[in-house]
Structures are given as C-alpha cells and as structure tokens.
C-alpha cells in the first residue's frame, strides 16, 4: 500500500517533508488515517450509526470524556487515555474496535502510532485537504542540471531526507520520446528525433516541449483522461445500449485544451455554460459534460427512479472531478468518514436536479434538452445557404410586389388541384368515382366500416424516414383508420388513426412495447369536415411527431415512446383501414395525401386551405386569411407568374429543400438547462426515489467555504465557487490529476479521494505550491504541464537500480522517473503512427475501426458491428465508437475505463490478453506490414540500416549491439522460413484493408513484417521510459 507513510516509513527517514519535526508523529498523515479507517464507522460523522456519543472526528469529541467518565485522551499520558487503553486492551470484550461486530483489532504498529501521538501531546488538526491552500516558500535546489524549477527543490529535499539522491538525466532521445508520448500520445517521428539530437541549443528540450504543447495532438491527448472522467460514450449505456451523439462535446474538450482555455473557465462552461449571459453555441455544447451519464430507456422503468440516478451521477461525477470527494456515500446516510451529512448531500444534489430531461431516455439518439450543434465548417455552409436563400427570397419578393395586382383568378383556373409537389408520394381525391358523396372538392370516399382502399406497395417507410399524412376527414364514429401501412395484429407499421375519438399517429414495431405513439389531447370533432395532418420527422422518438387540425398544431400526449426495431410492415398502403383488425373507418374522407417529407407548419397550413387558388384570387384581399394568401402566392409563383419569377421561385424552393436536408443531417448534442418551475428536492430516505422526506434547497457543504459574494445559488454559483481562488480543493485535485498524467500516480495517490480516507500526499508542500502556482497563474493548463515537463524531476532517467528498487519500490520519492506502460489509446495510435497509417484529422463523428466479428450480436439485439473503411479505420483511438456495455476490447484490455461511471484513477495491468492482442489483432498485424514497408523503402540499403531505422521508429533510439544481432538473427530466420513457404508469407501479410506495396518481394516483406510485429510488441515500445 502506498497510502500511508507510517512509522515504518519514518524508519527510513521519510517524515521530513511531512512534518517539521522528524521525531513527531504527524497527526494528519499518520494518526487521522487510523482513526478514520478503523473508528469512524461508529464514531465518525454519520449520526445514524454512531454507537455512542463518542466522536473521534472532531476536536471536541476527542478531548471530551468517554461514556465511563474517563477522558478519551490525556495529552502526554497514553496510559491514562481511554482511547489507548481500549484499542490496546487484551480482553476482547473491552477491546476496540469490537471483534463481536467483525472488526479486526488494530495492528501493533497502529497502536504504537496512536500511543506516540498521545505521548507527544496529541496535536489535533483539521483534515489537511479542507485547509486553505497556503503557498509554501519554494525550497532552493542547487542550480544547474538539477534544480531547474521549484518542483525540484521540493522533490530533492524530500528524497535527501530519506537518504536518496536523484537519478542522472535521461538520455536525450528517451526524454524526447517521453515528453512526446506524454504530451501528445504519439511517438516522435524519426525526423523529430534526429533534429532534436542535432540541436546544440541548451534550450532545445524546452523548445521541444513548447512545440508539443502547441501541437493539435496535445488537446487530443489531454482528452483521453477527461473523457473517462466525464464518462463520455457513444451509447446510452442500458439494455440494448443504442447510440447517442455527444461527439460535438468531445470536440469541444479537444478544442478547449488546444486553445489553452483557463481551467476555471473550462470548469464554468462545462458545469454552467447555459447560465452564462447570452451563451454561445460553444458554451451550450460544453454543458454536455453533465449529460454524458447513462440514460435508461428500458421498457417498464420508472422515470422518477432514473431521474434521481441521473442527478446523483452528475453530483458524484462533479464531486469526484473537482472536489476529489466521494460524496456518494452520503446518499443513504451521513458520510462515514468525511464531514458531509445526508441533508447536505441532497442540498448539493439540488443543483443538478433541475434539468428538464426526463427519467426515461430515448432508446436512440439524443434525449432533450438538446441543441443542434453544427461544426464550424457546417456553420459556414449554413451561412452560405442562408445568404443564398435570403437573396432568392428578396428576388421572389420583388416579383410578388411587382405582380401584386396582377394575380387574376383566370390565370389560376387550371390549378384547382394545386398542392406541394415536393415529396408528395400519394394523393387520392376520389373525384373520379361517380357515386361518391360530395367532398371538400369534387367527390369524396364514403367508408362504412367494412371496406377500405388498398393502394399497393407505396410509401414504404421505416422508422427513420420522415413522412406526413394529411386528409380531409368527416368521421361518423370514434374509431377508425385514416391512412396507414400497418398490420394491426403485431402491430407493425405506421399510420394516422382515429381511436376513441382522438387522433393518433403511430410508428409501431411488432414487439412487447416497441412503438411510438402520440395522441391529440382533444377529440376530433365528429360529423363535420376537419383537415387532419400527422407529421413525423424520422427522429425515432415522439419528440418528432406532430398533429394538426385544420392547419393548426394541436397539443398531443405521448402514449408510448419506445422505438427500437425496424417498423417496415409487409402491408400495402391503405386508406380507411383500422388501428385494430375490425376498426375500419366510418365516415367520409377526401384529398388523402402522403408526403415523404416532414412538412413544415406553414406548409401544413397551406395544405389545409380548402379553397382553390382561383377561389382565393377571387376573394377580396382583406378577406383572405394568412394561409389563404400564402397558398395563393405559392400557387401563383409556381404556375402563373412570368417565367423569370417562376424560375426564381423554383430555385428558392430547391434551396429551401436543400437546407432542410442539410439541417436534418446536422449533429446535435445533449445539454444542460434549468427548468422554469424548479423541481423540488427532498432528502430521500435511504437514497430511494420513492421515499422523499424533508424538502431542501440548493446548498454547499458546511465544511467547505461558502458561495463567493454575489454568486447566484444555482449551478453557476456552484461553478464560481469551485473556481474561486480560495477554494481548498479544486486546484489541489486538478494539479494532482495532471501530475498523475505525467508521473503515473498522483502526489495524492487516491486522485479520486482527498477525504479523510484518502492517501496522504507524498509531497504536501509541493502539492500546495503547484496548486497556488496554478491559481495565481490564471489556471493556465499548458503552463502547468510545461512547468512539470521541464523540471529536472521529470527529466531523470527511469532506469531502476537494485538500490532504488529496494529503498523505494513504488517510486514515491521520485528519485527516478517512472517507467509507465502507455495508455490504451496511445498503444494503438503509436502503432498506426509508426506504420504511417494514422489519419490525423481533428474531431468529427466517432469511427469504427477493426473489431472481431460477432461481439455485439452475441450479447444484444443491436445489429452487427460493421467496421469502417479507408481513413476512418486509422483515426486516433479517442475517436473510436464507444459502446458502453461492450467497449472496444482492445481498449479495455489495456485498462481504459469502461465509461459507465466517472473514473479518474489510472490503472495499469500486465496480462496475457494484452500479449494476444498485440500479437494477433489485425490492427497490429496490418500496422506491422506497413511498418515493414517503411523499413524497406525508407530504411536504407541493407538489413542493418533498415532494422536500425525500424528500431528508431519504435523506440527513438538505435539498437545496441546485442539488440541489433537479435533482430538480424530473427530476420534471417523468418526470411529463410518464408522463402521456403511463400504461400505462408502471403497469408501472414493478409491482415487489414490497406493495400500492399506491389513493388516489394512477398517473403522479404513477410520476414520484415514479423520483425516489425516483434518491435510493436517490445516492452520498451509500449512503455514510456
């Protein structure tokens, strides 16, 4: 355990940096952890489980009397202190913690620590992480190679106190590779290595770091861990776990890191960008941070239950990322270890409980609140379209003005049937049938509940296709179908129906409850003509369904919103067929239309105008309604105006349709908002959604500072509070996480827990100095990364000597640089880069690289994973489509977080599954082939040069003599092998879709590719050292 630097650590002299007096036991790093871990369950902050009035988490409690009247602690006299007597008691009945409840006794070392603490006066201090950050004076470190910046002074003092000396500086090539991998997640190119080695400037390394920080790759690298913290993924995370689109948020993160957005602003925008005055689209996109949580769409879930889970997830994620506190414990009861009451938990929760989202998320796509979030390029296109449309509208308007008086009924005499032609798939007006009754115009269809019209295989839409159904309806009965392509037994298909007097729009699947239905809140008037329209925009959720009566939108209720499977029905398009097997339409229908577009409200209004264009033209202008005027204008411009006007009109219509199609393809992103009527927040008994108790208002934790003056008591205030200069946690927690990124472990190793159960900092003064520096420097992330990466501490060699391994196996004192296996993303990205395959575009929709077949299908009802092709196979790994319940196996094998919940702790395991992955995944075998081609083409004239070049690409150095001979020997062995079996050579080279260089000899390439694979599998290659 690296958590405690206890008495054992004292023995090797580690205490100096923790405590001014080496002989004293340090309460905060040594004593409180014991009390917290072993005593607080029953004698801590949780009032619900406190076993006696005794509290050991407060000064008052510790210096009070125990229940038997004896003092808990007598400073200086351990043998008179009840605390010591009880933990050290021989009698199990007296001993604390009580064995009867399954608690193990304290170890002898723990008892000795407590005893020494009491003997030395029992100094009490508040938990260190809640104390204000005080900038410590930077220790002086000897100038020169060591002592490049104040970090080194702190680190050196600490290791010297333990009798250690720093390691020599790393070799320059190693240092460049280390910094390049750490700051960009990619290896240096051969040219970068060469030019760095050739640069005589004493500031060459600093210049290289500046170059890396300025690279767009930096933002991608920084996003690796931020996406895990934010539980970012491309799916909803429950049950069938279908897709959502949050990549615009992901790109916002990359852009923000690249633009070096100050971390305080980075915080405010993500937590409360929607509450900024006049928020920009970027400000809104940023708030996707707290919509990245999972969303449940399972049939039968209780929305109220998941509403609670989402708010809790937002709270826990925010608390972990910014406060480094495990607040979640206080959901059901007061926190066992930290001063957070259950009531305070719900006060804090209230900040996150006022989003207008619903408890049940859509199975597909984004659940409101969402914003349409065009990329900068798309915004440019949109602006261009809007400009062209405005221009055309002006031109058309000019014609209309000029021709205002010129519209005559006679010009439109032939246009009685005028209708929107764009997207019109079907129209029936029944005028030909002689015996039919009078319709809205001409004849209409009378349906008697027995017959219907069968129109054959028309309008074959699936649930992602938009459509509009409209008709004039005079119903005689409460139930019956208007128009549909629908199998009532199933049910399956889509249609517009009358059910129990109300109008329903349905898009159904033959399954338990996979369907989408909305219903008009009010009944359709019976016995008179009403124009009815139902519009569906193909969004696969009822948010995209609208109903209109007589051209006006009517309020609807969502009956069910569970779309999962295809709704294609093996049925003809029918008019008058019922929603059930026997419920055929009774009444009269006229002018039934189906459009393969979602008509806009103004278009529906025009379709619902009963009068013909000629009739409108004949009316007095003042008598014309707005829709009538619109219909007349459109019909005129389309049919009767002079050619120049008609031409402009056609172009305008085409431009509008093009814009409509463009808008439909724009990405959206889920965002935060605030409900107008705040959702009341209650303390939930045992954390359960259906057990609300007292009502609470938004509020902070009493153990931490209060809201800054003038800050509103909402999410914005919360964000301002987190980023105020006097907050004790945000800066410490943040610099610690960045430190972990470069050193593999935090100064506080429990990066997620700065509370009383967390690890003590190994370098507390360094942590505070960095935090103070970060705040005073304006929360400048690149400056912080530069500071750390240019320290002598960072630049040491990572070689492990036997002495260091024995003295400090976990490298807590940093007398060497850490050797760290690369993150999952960097392992794959590096292989693609070495192979010359990496596609370097920034941002965009997530991509699907190679994945073994059948993985998705085995577990869920979502179709097969189909990998992309071309460049999309070779994007950086942070763009890989992430299905939450079944993440990319190669990423998970290398310890990427599953993205179901917030994870900030880095983890590195070493397993045979990793070995199998690197040896046999087509990703790496394809990369090995392309890498081999590079060796052959670019490496030089002979094997030695080619192998050395290959080695350089992977490790940024040349092979040592023995390494070179092992490589040569392997190459010649495989060359012989494949020369005698060229068919095997061909098969070995078959992985992946990238074309093979036809100019290269197959056995030769296979031999090189095998050596290339070895180089990709080398421990040094997948390690940053």
């Amino acid at each position, binding site marked *: 355990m690296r958590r405690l630097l206890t008495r054992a650590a004292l023995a090797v002299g580690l205490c100096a940096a923790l405590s001014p007096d080496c002989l004293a036991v340090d309460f905060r790093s040594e004593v409180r952890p014991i009390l917290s871990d072993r005593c607080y369950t029953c004698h801590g902050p949780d009032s619900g489980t406190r076993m006696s009035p005794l509290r050991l988490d407060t000064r008052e409690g510790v210096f009070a009397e125990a229940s038997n009247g004896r003092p808990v602690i007598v400073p200086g006299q351990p043998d008179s202190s009840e605390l010591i007597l009880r933990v050290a008691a021989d009698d199990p009945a007296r001993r604390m913690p009580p064995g009867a409840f399954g608690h193990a006794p304290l170890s002898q070392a723990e008892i000795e620590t407590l005893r020494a603490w009491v003997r030395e006066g029992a100094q009490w201090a508040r938990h260190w992480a809640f104390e204000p950050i005080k900038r410590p004076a930077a220790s002086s470190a000897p100038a020169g190679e060591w002592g490049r910046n104040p970090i080194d002074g702190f680190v050196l003092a600490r290791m010297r106190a333990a009798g250690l000396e720093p390691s020599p500086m790393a070799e320059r090539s190693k240092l460049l590779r280390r910094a390049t991998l750490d700051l960009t997640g990619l290896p240096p190119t051969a040219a970068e290595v060469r030019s760095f080695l050739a640069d005589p400037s004493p500031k060459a390394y600093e210049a290289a770091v500046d170059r890396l920080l300025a690279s767009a790759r930096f933002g991608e690298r920084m996003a690796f861990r931020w996406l895990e913290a934010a539980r970012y993924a491309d799916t909803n995370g429950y049950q069938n776990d279908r897709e959502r689109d949050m990549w615009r948020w992901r790109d916002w993160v990359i852009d923000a890191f690249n633009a070096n957005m100050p971390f305080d602003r980075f915080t405010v925008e993500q937590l409360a960008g929607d509450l900024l005055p006049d928020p920009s689209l970027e400000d809104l996109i940023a708030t996707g941070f707290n919509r990245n949580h999972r969303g449940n769409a399972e049939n039968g879930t209780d929305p109220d239950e998941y509403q609670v889970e989402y708010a809790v997830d937002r709270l826990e994620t925010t608390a972990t990322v910014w406060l480094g506190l495990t607040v979640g414990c206080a959901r059901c009861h007061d926190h066992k270890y930290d001063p957070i009451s259950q009531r305070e938990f719900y006060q804090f929760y209230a900040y996150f409980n006022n989003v207008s989202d619903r408890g049940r998320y859509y199975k597909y796509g984004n659940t409101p609140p969402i914003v349409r979030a065009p990329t900068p390029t798309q915004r440019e296109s949109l602006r261009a379209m809007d400009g062209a449309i405005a221009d055309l509208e002006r031109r058309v308007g000019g014609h209309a003005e000029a021709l205002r008086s010129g519209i005559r009924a006679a010009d439109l005499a032939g246009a009685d049937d005028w209708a929107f032609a764009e997207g019109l798939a079907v129209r029936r007006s029944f005028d030909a049938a002689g015996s039919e009754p009078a319709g809205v115009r001409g004849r209409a269809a009378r349906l008697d509940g027995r017959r219907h019209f069968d129109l054959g295989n028309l309008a074959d839409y699936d649930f992602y296709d938009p459509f509009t159904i409209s008709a004039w309806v005079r119903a005689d009965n409460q139930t019956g179908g208007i128009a549909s392509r629908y199998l009532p037994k199933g049910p399956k298909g889509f249609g517009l129906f009358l059910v129990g007097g109300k109008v329903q729009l349905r898009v159904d699947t033959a399954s338990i409850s996979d369907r989408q239905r909305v219903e008009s809140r009010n009944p359709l008037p019976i016995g008179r003509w009403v124009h009815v329209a139902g519009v569906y925009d193909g969004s696969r959720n009822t948010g995209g369904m609208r109903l209109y009566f007589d051209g006006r939108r009517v309020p609807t209720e969502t009956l069910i919103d569970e779309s999962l499977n295809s709704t294609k029905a093996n049925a003809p398009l029918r008019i008058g067929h019922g929603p059930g097997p026997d419920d055929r339409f009774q009444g009269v229908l006229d002018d039934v239309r189906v459009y393969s577009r979602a008509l806009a409200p103004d278009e529906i209004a025009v379709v619902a105008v009963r009068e013909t264009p000629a009739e409108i033209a004949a009316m007095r202008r003042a008598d014309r309604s707005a829709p009538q005027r619109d219909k007349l204008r459109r019909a005129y411009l389309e049919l009767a105006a002079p050619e120049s006007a008609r031409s402009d009109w056609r172009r305008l219509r085409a431009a509008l349709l093009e814009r409509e199609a463009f808008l439909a393809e724009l990405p959206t992103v889920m965002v935060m908002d605030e409900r107008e009527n705040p959702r009341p927040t209650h303390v939930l008994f045992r954390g359960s959604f259906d057990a609300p108790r007292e009502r609470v208002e938004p509020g902070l934790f009493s153990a931490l500072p209060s809201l800054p003056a003038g800050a509103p008591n909402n999410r914005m205030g919360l964000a301002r509070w987190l980023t105020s200069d006097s907050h004790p946690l945000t800066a410490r927690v943040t610099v610690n996480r960045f430190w972990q990124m470069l050193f593999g472990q935090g100064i506080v190793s429990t990066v997620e827990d700065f509370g009383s159960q967390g690890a003590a900092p190994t370098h507390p003064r360094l942590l505070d100095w960095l935090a103070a520096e970060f705040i005073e420097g304006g929360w400048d992330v690149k400056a912080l990364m530069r500071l750390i990466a240019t320290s002598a501490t960072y630049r040491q060699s990572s*070689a492990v000597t036997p002495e260091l391994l024995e003295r400090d196996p976990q490298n807590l004192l940093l007398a060497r640089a850490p050797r760290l296996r690369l993150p999952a993303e960097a392992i794959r990205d590096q292989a693609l880069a070495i192979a010359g395959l990496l596609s370097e575009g920034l941002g965009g929709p997530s991509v699907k690289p190679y994945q073994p077949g059948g993985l998705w299908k085995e577990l869920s009802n979502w179709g097969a994973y189909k990998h992309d092709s071309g460049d999309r196979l070779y994007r950086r790994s942070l763009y890989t489509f992430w299905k939450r319940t079944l993440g990319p196996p190669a990423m998970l094998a290398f310890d990427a977080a599953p993205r179901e919940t917030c994870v900030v702790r880095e983890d590195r395991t070493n397993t*045979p599954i990793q070995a199998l992955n690197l040896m046999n995944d087509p990703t790496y075998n394809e990369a090995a082939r392309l890498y081999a081609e590079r060796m052959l083409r670019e490496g030089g004239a002979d094997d030695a040069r080619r192998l050395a070049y290959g080695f350089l690409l992977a490790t940024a150095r040349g092979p040592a003599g023995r390494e070179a001979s092992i490589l040569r020997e392997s190459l010649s062995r495989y060359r012989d092998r494949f020369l005698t079996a060229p068919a095997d050579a061909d098969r070995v080279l078959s992985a992946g879709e990238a074309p093979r260089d036809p100019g290269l000899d197959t056995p030769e390439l296979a031999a090189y590719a095998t050596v290339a694979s070895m180089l990709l599998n080398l421990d040094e290659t997948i390690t940053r050292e």
Partner: protein
Amino acid sequence: MTFDPGVALTRRQLFGSSATGLGIVALSDLLAEDLRPAPANTGLDGVPHFAPRAKRVIYLFQSGGPSQMDLFDAKPGLRELQGSELPDSVRGGQRLTGMTAAQSSFPVAPSKFEFARAGESGQEFGELIPHIASISDKIAVIRSMTTEQINHDPAITYLQTGHQLAGRPSLGSWLSYGLGSESSSLPSYVVMVSLGSTGQPLYSRLWGSGFLPTRYQAVKFRAGREPVLYLNDPDGFSRTDRRTYLDGLAALNRAHLEEFGDPEIENRIAQYEMAFRMQASVPELTDLSSEPDSVFEMYGEDARKPGTYASNCLLARRLVERGVRCVQLFHRGWDHHNNLPSNLAQRCAETDRASAALVKDLERRGLLEETLVVWGGEFGRTVYCQGELTRQNYGRDHHPRCFSIWLAGGGIRGGTTHGATDDFSYNVAADPVSVPDLHATILHLMGVDHKRLTFKYQGRHFRLTDVHGALVRPILA
C-alpha cells in the same frame, strides 16, 4: 481474470544474471525449469477464511427471468382461479413495470403444465424440466428468492455484482481476487454465452471487475475458430514461428531489462509466455473430439454444436477439471411476456438436459463434491397474465418479489426445498432469501466470509454483499 505470473525472481536473477550470449534462448524451457509459476495468482493472504466446501463454482445464468410457477413453484390451486382477478390484498400496491402498470385487470394465469414429485426427496418439478427433476435429490431448490429490481438491466446487474448500477465487481471477480487461480494456463474466471440465443441483451459489466484491477474480470470464451479474442496466430504463422518469435522478443526484452532493471519487464515476458500457453491450452480445452459418445448422450446431441448451451455445459465441466475457479454460462431468452408456454418449452428444451447432465457428469467424475453449481435468473414472473389469457396461452410480466433457483454440489444438501411462497406465488410466505443472502452463501461455500472479503475504493471498504447478507443455512450439507 487472474494471471499474476507469480514469478518470484530473486535479485540475483534480476540483476546479477549474465547476458545469455547471443539472443535466442528457448525461454519456455527456462521457464519450465525454474521460472514457470506453479499455480498463478494465489489470491489474498488468509483467504479462504475457513475450509471451503467447494473449490469452484459453475453458475448457469438463465437471463430474462424464468417463470417460477411453471417450473419449480407448483400452485395447483390456481387452476380453479383461472381468469379471476388477482386479489388486491396479494398485490399489495406493489410497484409494477411500465408494461403492465396501465393494464386494467390482472387475471390469474395458472400454469398449464403438470407437476410431479421426483426422487426420494419428492421435490416437485414442472413437466418441461424432466432432466432437472431426475437430479432432484442432488439439488436444493430455493423457492423464496427475492430481489429489489424489477427491470432487466438493474436486476441482472444486481444479481451479478450486488448492486443495481454499474461499477461494482462481479461475483466471479470477487472470487478471483480473493481466492486466486488454480491454473497456470487458463484464466480463473471464464464466461460463455449461448450462441444464437436472443432476448434481453447482456453487458460486459456483468462479468467485469468494476473497481477491482481489470485482471480479475472474466475472459469470455466464444464458440468458433477463436475461443478467446486474438488467441489465434495469423494465418500462415505456425506454432514454431510463434515460439521463435517469443524467444526473440524475450531476448530483446531481457537485454533491456539488464539495462533498465524494471521488474515489470520480467513480468511482461512471463505474460507473453502465459499467452503462449493459453494458445495451446484453450484449443485443447475447447476441442471436444476426445469426448466419447456416451458424453454426448448425456448432454444431448446439441453438445456437438459449438456455442450451444449444452456444448457450453460440457466445456464448463472441462474448465473446472482444469482448475478454473469460476465458470459462468449465460442463456438468453427467458423473458416471456407473451406466448409463455411455447417459449418456455423451447428454452427448457435447450437447457434442461444439459444442466442435469452437467451435475451428473461432475458427480461421476468425483468433481461434484468440490464444485458448486447454481441455476437461476434475475427475477421471477407474475401470476397475473400479461396480454391475452387462454387456458393454453398466456404471458407473464417481471416479478421481483419471488422466484426460484437451485444449487447443487459442494456443500449443498441435495433434495432440499427451501422457502415458500403464498398461494399465488406472488409473495414469499416463508424464509425469504435476498440476493446478498445468496451471495453470502456462495462465498461461504467457497470458504470466504462475505464480511471479510473487502476492497478499499473511494475510501470505503466495499464488499459484494454491501452491508447485507445472511447465510442460507438450511440448504447447507
């Protein structure tokens, strides 16, 4: 998955060994002599906490919620109540799923299946599971399981991890973490999903390691050419090629180790050797051609088809024979909201024979005594009908209040029926068993005190059973 190589290197081996001359030593031989781990990860010190009754567990997970009153929980009295309204007093205002909450009536749907007593113990089983009935005296049936979750995702997550939300380690991961592995060439926790079964989806978190290190997660075995992801070498690349490749790689790594001294490099070499061993042991394991015909008669002809439940049952036996600690099978498709009789019959036809054969086969080989077998789903089903009700056809909604599972093998008292439900198989009438109770009991049989198997994460000492769990003593032998 537990693959700690357990390679105990001395300092001399690490730093003092001289270079092995030029390059390519047969590392496997070297490992065979002095470095190859005996059993790999040995688990935690002090675990097992006491003498285990079972060393291994096979959990046959029937995903979707099998209907207890059509299989295990006979309620003959319901026949007379066919179609009558479920009394409000029974339902007691219980939370329903969104799928039937709006239903206007809750008519009683008695099982259409016959029940019969079986074995000396006389336990009752429905007619769809005659083979399970035939091992009546070897199994303990718990009729009084209850869960807190009414929907699939949270319910199955709860059963697998002790918590309804994502993020906690699975039962098998806890066992791997606590007890370690007994095999040096196979993972300690293996999961298999019946191929082609459809129904409610599954998620990798169900066998994930949650906040435990990822090496404790299950390795999923798959039917077909490549039983473990990326197990197979590229086409055209022979075993000898791989051997020389690994020797060359190890020589390069070792050269670097001498210079850099990081023991993690040695660990990497050992992991690659483990991978090499798996490349041999897994295909050997999954190759059923050496099994005699009599075995296929037991498990059914389906067992010849890779990926079937029957085939996976047979593989489960082969895995525990080879020391794998925890094997879990998942069979989907027990979620019978409608057409229950025909769908249930189908699922039983796929699983009944092989489930029973597994128990018999383990017994025949003397493995049953130290292998715990568990059969069950994530919740039960309602007595009231969902959808159309006829004598011959009905559907049932999710039901968390009671369901039936069975256990057999190490430490289980066969022939025991534990717990009872009310006349409607709606509420537990006697001896409720919660999910943490079941977990505590499984751990207990494996020699683990569920209160003492903990992992500190986010400042808390987490355990599988959280703050709950009581042993189900009456089913223990």
